Structures are given as C-alpha cells and as structure tokens.
C-alpha cells in the first residue's frame, strides 16, 4: 500500500510538470525512480522507455511498466492514473477558460517565455535517454544515422527506424557478439 502511495505521489508530480510533453520530465523521472526511490536500474529504465516506444499512442505509457515493476497490477494502474489524469484535468479547466486567458496581455509572454524552456527540457530528456542507451561507438553511430535520416531526409515514419533499432540490436547480439553494442 505504501508503494502505491509513493507511485501516486511520484507520477502525479511528474504529470503537472510535464510542460511540453513527456520528454521534458524524463530526467526528473530518472532521478525519482532510480536515485531516490531505487525502483529501477539505469538499464531497466532504458528498457522500459524502449517498450513505450514500441507501443502505439503516447510513449509515456511506459509509466505503466514502471508501476507494474514496483507494485504489480495495482502499481501499473496507479502509475497510469497518476501520470495521465492530473494534467488532463488541468487541460480541461484551462481550455474552458481559454478565451479569458487568450485576451490577457500575459498570454503571449507566457508562451514566448516557456517555448525555449520546453526546448531545453526536451534536449535534457534526449540526453537522459542517451546516457542509458548510447554506451559505445556502435549505438552512437546508429543514433546519428537516425537523426540524419529524420532531420534531413524525406518524410519517413519514425516507427520504422525504431524497429530498425531493435533489429540492429538483435543482429549485433546474435551474430556479432565480438562487437560491443
């Protein structure tokens, strides 16, 4: 029961801080789940993040796996509700008052001021995952290729590159065990 309460606390806090989406809270989620609560190791965090990437819909559904890991099915449900419900309630309330917010002289400054913070937080989220998944030259090279293809290439569904990453991992561990991956 205590662990369920902790799950509710950790993920509802993350929920209301998720400015700009789930990526923004990845560094804080790592700190809370690995360093503070000792629920996961770095490698488990990376694995669970990757599981979230495979499934359709919001990839932050990964919190379900963290909750399950900590406290079974009840933990999974608690993590899901805590992470997804608070921000949705805020969105619902603010959206109904939006016309009033929009007229305020402070609406544009808030949006302009928060935009660079969101970019900084997203870069920090990327680094948080990189620290767990980029551990040698092979993974670094692959991440670079994915970036170049998506940023400079023609429109390609990112899901294909995610699948390619999994396939590459399988090939390296099965057929090229002498090369670090």
């Amino acid at each position, binding site marked *: 029961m205590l662990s369920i309460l902790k799950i509710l606390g950790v993920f509802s806090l993350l929920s209301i801080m998720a400015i700009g989406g789930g990526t923004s809270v990845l560094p804080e989620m790592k*700190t809370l789940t690995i360093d503070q609560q000792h629920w996961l190791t770095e490698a488990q965090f990376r694995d669970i993040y990757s599981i979230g990437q495979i499934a*359709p819909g919001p990839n932050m559904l990964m919190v379900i796996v963290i909750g399950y890991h900590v406290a079974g099915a009840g933990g999974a449900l608690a993590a899901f509700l805590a992470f*997804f419900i608070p*921000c949705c309630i805020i969105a619902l309330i603010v959206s109904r008052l939006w016309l009033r917010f929009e007229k305020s002289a402070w609406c544009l400054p808030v949006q302009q001021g928060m935009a660079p913070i969101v970019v900084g937080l997203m870069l920090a989220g990327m680094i948080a995952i990189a620290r767990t998944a980029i551990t040698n030259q092979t993974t670094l090279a692959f991440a670079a290729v994915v970036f170049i293809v998506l940023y400079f290439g023609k429109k390609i569904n990112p899901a294909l590159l995610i699948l390619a990453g999994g396939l590459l991992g399988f090939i390296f561990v099965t057929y090229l065990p002498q090369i670090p991956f």
Partner: protein
Amino acid sequence: MSDAASESTGAPAAPMKEVSIWEIFLTFLIIGGTSFGGGVVAYLRNSLVSTKEWLNEDEFLTVLEISQTLPGLNATNMAVLVGDRLRGIPGAIAGFVGMTLPGSIMVFVLGLVYASNSHNPTINAVLKGIGAASVGLLLAVTLKIGHKQLEHYVDIILVSVTLILVSFMHVSLVIVLLTVGPIAVFLYRPRNLSRDKSGTDKKAAD
C-alpha cells in the same frame, strides 16, 4: 455525415453536429491504436479535420496550442479537449480512454513479458537498439520544434540555462520551472498595453 447545411449558417462554430460518445471513443481508439512512432499530431489532424470534420483548421490549431501550452502529453490533452468540445465531460472521458486504451494494453502485455525476461541479453540488446534510435528521433523532433528558439540570443540563453541546470547540474525540475520560468516570462513581459502584432515583438526582449 449530416453537415451539408453548416456552411450556410454564419453562426459561430457552436457545438457543431451531435456526435455520439461511442463515435468519439472509436475515433480516438483508432488514432491511439495506429499512431506509432510519435507523430500523433499528424494523425489527429488527418482524422479530426480531414476525415471527421469535427474541427476546422483554425479550431484544430487553437486546441493544439492549448494542448502544447499546458502540461501533459499532446495526444491525451487533445483527446480530452476535442471530446469536451463535442460532448462535454463524457466526451472528454471517451476521447481519453480511446486514446490510451490500445497502447496501455500493449505496454502492459509487453511489461509482463519483460518482467520475466529482464535479464535476457537478447531482449536487452533489442531494447537498447530501440533506445539508441529514440535518441536520434528525440533530437530530430526537438530541433524541428525548436529551430525558432535557436535563432534569437535570449532564447538560446534560456534553452542553454535550462539544459545545463537539468542535465549537468541535476537541479530538481520544480526549482528549474519556478526560477527560469518567471525570468523567461519577465523577459517577454508586455511592454505596452497595446499588443503589436508586427513581428517586432521578439526584439522587445533585447
């Protein structure tokens, strides 16, 4: 669809046509079950604006703007806001459940498989490869969203300060949001009571 008459009425895009709760649920269920790889906004626009015509382009952009300004994931915020506009709270719940149900079930099943194989080297390598791909994906997405923020020096400083505090000094996110946030808003504070829309507003921060 029975919206042939909607164009002739000059009324503000009021609660549109009556959409059933079930249809809201099904629509978001399909989006939630097919949006692989992150780009959920494209799926949403395609379905809500083009196919279903529940929103016009302007309304879609407004809902998107609200979703992006507020905390939370775009996908679920959009589902809640669009559901709410169509049918109030029950619509919001239908949109939310539809959006998250397919992925939740799949993630939960994968989590069960992972729980009993978390030390399997092959599974670890596959997931590590996916993690590495995600890093490239996250960087591409961030730079595409953020390239405007990397042109003006005030923005570059705010991006850098946030990044350094979070990634390298490991300052708690609450503290970062409560310090850098107000400073950033202050830098862009309204100078005159009249908001000029002339595109010079960025320079006001100099």
